[in-house]
């Protein structure tokens, strides 16, 4: 009997264990590459894992649904992980109180700028509604961004990809951009990185200083909350306004 690799793969690919195992292996491979590369943003573990998995799935002719049979066990944890964001939020409450007014105004400005800039740029570049809805929450941490995108008629997986690319870009250009703009306060630098580039921005801010890291981490949850509330509201207002305008 000859071993037909193709037949073996067809059998294995249909088993949930394969998708789950591939996901964990690809991610840990990404973490390893990130470490050896000297923590380059371009070697972000999520980016590496996603690219590697897409390449594997295309090379073996496996569809996403078969892969997701196994990967859904990882994906499911996004829900409880989002709830768990309440814990770091709670830990930072003392710092929030210390600069409550500046933090609140900067956060709302940042959340609104993030939403409005994405929608306007996408609209100017002639993107259709579903793409605009997927891009609108791009600066927010993935579990929240995906949920919000779904609520306003976007594609959660497209949002997830755009959020990751946004995070990597923000983390890579952030520190030099902020310095060139004359933003020196560690609180402001941290908040800016967290509001615009979520978790990946926070990792970069932590390398800069503890204060920047703390404010960036805080911004992940708060901008998520602000965008989760503001974006669907803006969406419903726009829809209502459009319906009223159109008679």
């Amino acid at each position, binding site marked *: 009997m000859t071993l037909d690799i193709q037949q073996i793969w067809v059998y294995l690919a249909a088993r949930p264990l394969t998708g789950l195992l591939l996901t964990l292996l690809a991610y840990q491979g990404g973490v390893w590459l990130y470490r050896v590369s000297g923590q380059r943003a371009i070697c972000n573990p999520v980016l590496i894992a996603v690219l590697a998995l897409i390449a594997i799935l295309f090379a073996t002719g496996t569809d*996403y649904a078969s892969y997701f049979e196994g990967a859904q066990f990882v994906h499911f944890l996004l829900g*409880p992980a989002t709830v768990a964001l309440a814990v770091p939020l709670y830990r930072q409450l003392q710092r929030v109180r210390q600069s409550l007014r500046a933090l609140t105004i900067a956060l709302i400005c940042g959340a609104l700028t993030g939403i409005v800039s994405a929608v306007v740029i996408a609209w100017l570049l002639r993107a259709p509604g579903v*793409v605009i809805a997927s891009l609108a929450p791009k*600066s927010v941490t993935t579990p929240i961004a995906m949920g919000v995108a779904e609520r306003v008629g976007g594609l959660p997986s497209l949002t997830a990809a755009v959020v990751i690319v946004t995070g990597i870009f923000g983390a890579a250009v952030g520190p030099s951009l902020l310095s060139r703009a004359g*933003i020196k306060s560690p609180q402001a630098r941290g908040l800016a990185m967290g509001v615009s580039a979520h978790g990946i921005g926070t990792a970069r801010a932590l390398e800069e200083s503890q204060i920047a890291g703390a404010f960036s981490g805080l911004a992940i949850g708060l901008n998520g909350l602000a965008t989760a509330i503001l974006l669907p509201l803006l969406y419903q207002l726009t829809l209502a306004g459009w319906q009223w305008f159109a008679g």
Partner: protein
Amino acid sequence: MLRWLTILLLCQWLGELAVTVSGLAVPGPVVGMLLLLIGLLMLGQEPSELGAVADGLLQHLSLLFVPAGVGVMQHLGIIRLQWAPLLGVVILGTIITMLATGWVMQWLQTDSDEPAP
């Protein structure tokens, strides 16, 4: 450990329920986050086991993005068609958002209790 994981899932479930009942355009897990935050405020302290469960989940938060990220392979068509808005929003949108947030925060900040590094 199991008790706090159950409470996290209960908060998410209640959040999903609240969203379904009220028709609010906010994700259920985000409402669950708010419920847990209110619970912690009422408790007045962070139970160490809850901290351990939350830290454990959030420590590998990046990993949880991967399956959805791979899902982008289903949208390669729309990406090829819409590469200009995608690129424009990621680059320009991120720069504008970062600068706006940083400027407003630095401008309004009055607490100089902590020295710059």
